[in-house]
């Protein structure tokens, strides 16, 4: 089988790996070519936090993230040490009793999806994370969540797939292949569009929007944090509406550095740092971790998530182009769900079973939505 994957981020690399492995299982040697004009894992893959997190905004999202976490656990022993895979777990921090009361349905949903989740009261939270400010109501602890340095994983998966990586940009999708910007035509049985927001330039009707985020990394410092810490209010701010938003989201790196997020802004395609928004983001973080005020930042950067209208990725065949599959629109969960996406894609391409087929991730689901009608 001949396959082309457009995009050498983690989603593209995971898809290349899954296509190569399933093809080998069928007794066919797969020839996978990955087209990536930039560095491997140099786009949204490098810009994000690498937080592997189960989320339950919808049953489909819960299924995809929970399955992906299982796949990460299976992959972890094979990863190179530079991938910094680290099972720190997540604490969803409740600011008040109202937020804490909303945790119980979330906990039950996680358990039903096979993910451990326990409730911490205020005292237990203070013992688990002594640097959090006093007066918080408690937290939901999800011990199976992890963090990873995703660009290294992308490179690892491409090598494992035996994929040929070509530093070329695609100009056009054609029936049975692609035309490169150089003019060269490449033919393939399967073409996977996995270049994040770049998919829009190849398929202008896709209902995808850029959603910019800011991240900051501190120097190694005196503040010890043990879990990835996220405020429960994140669930409201992350997907609530179209306005600029910030939320407390801090990750301990294995080096002792802290990675601080998060922000969300639609329609800001530039890479510039929005200093007022950054200030809001850091003020929010310091409300939860007051000691952050005394620690220096090493670097600040921005990245672009690729958001779909229902916050679920587009994974599946293009409704009108033969042999073209999509794997894009992962918004802030592309690192977590790259492995589940690849499993789902392989199930669609090779007709093998996957529990993820029970949910509709296909691009065709948007034909019913007004967002596409005018796009």
């Amino acid at each position, binding site marked *: 089988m001949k396959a082309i994957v457009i995009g050498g981020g983690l989603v593209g690399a995971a898809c290349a790996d899954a296509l190569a492995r399933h093809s080998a299982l069928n007794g066919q040697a797969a020839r996978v070519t990955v087209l990536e004009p930039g560095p491997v894992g140099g786009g949204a893959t490098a810009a994000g936090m690498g937080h592997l997190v189960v989320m339950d905004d919808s049953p489909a999202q819960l299924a995809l993230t929970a399955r992906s976490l299982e796949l990460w656990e299976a992959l972890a022993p094979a990863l190179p040490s530079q991938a910094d895979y680290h099972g720190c777990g997540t604490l969803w921090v409740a600011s008040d009793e109202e937020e804490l009361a909303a945790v119980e349905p979330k906990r039950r949903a996680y358990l039903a999806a096979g993910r451990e989740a326990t409730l911490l009261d205020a005292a237990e939270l203070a013992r688990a994370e002594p640097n959090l400010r006093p007066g918080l109501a408690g937290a939901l602890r999800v011990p199976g969540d992890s963090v990873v340095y995703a660009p290294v994983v992308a490179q690892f998966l491409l090598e494992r797939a035996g994929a040929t990586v070509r530093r070329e940009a695609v100009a056009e999708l054609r029936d049975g292949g692609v035309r490169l910007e150089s003019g060269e035509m490449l033919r393939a049985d399967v073409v996977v569009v996995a270049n994040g927001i770049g998919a829009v330039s190849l398929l202008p009707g896709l209902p995808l929007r850029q959603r910019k985020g800011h991240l900051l990394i501190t*120097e190694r410092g005196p503040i010890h944090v043990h879990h990835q810490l996220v405020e429960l209010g994140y669930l409201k701010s992350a997907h609530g509406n179209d306005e600029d938003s910030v939320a407390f989201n801090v990750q301990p790196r294995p080096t002792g550095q802290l990675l601080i997020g998060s922000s969300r802004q639609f329609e800001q395609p530039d890479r510039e740092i929005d200093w007022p928004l950054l200030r809001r983001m850091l003020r929010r973080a310091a409300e939860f971790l007051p000691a952050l005020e005394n620690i220096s930042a090493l670097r600040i950067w921005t990245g672009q998530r690729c958001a779909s209208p229902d916050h679920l990725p587009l994974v599946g065949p293009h409704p009108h182009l033969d042999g073209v599959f999509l794997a894009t629109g992962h918004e802030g969960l592309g690192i977590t769900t790259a492995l589940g996406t690849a499993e789902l894609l392989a199930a669609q391409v090779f007709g093998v079973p996957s529990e993820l087929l029970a949910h509709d991730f296909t691009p065709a689901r948007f034909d019913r939505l007004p967002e596409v009608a005018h796009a």
Partner: protein
Amino acid sequence: MPERTLAVLTLEGVRVTVPAGTTVLAALQNAGLSPLRRSLSGEARGALCGMGSCSECRAVVDGLTVRTCLTPVHDGQSVQRLGIVNREV
């Protein structure tokens, strides 16, 4: 010869006199304080770009971690390498 303005600062407890207008990084290098710090795995680290981009020249000046290549010297400054502050040299 034109008169040069001098600044007196303290580098890890030692008083040194340097020309005003130079950087804390230059003062550290002239004093032979090397390496500036160590990586987590113990590798020696020091100034690389000299223009504020790489952050490799960080040290603690008057209690704050700064990029020393961008920090002008002035009278009375107290400078310590990060390794001394973090007791990891």
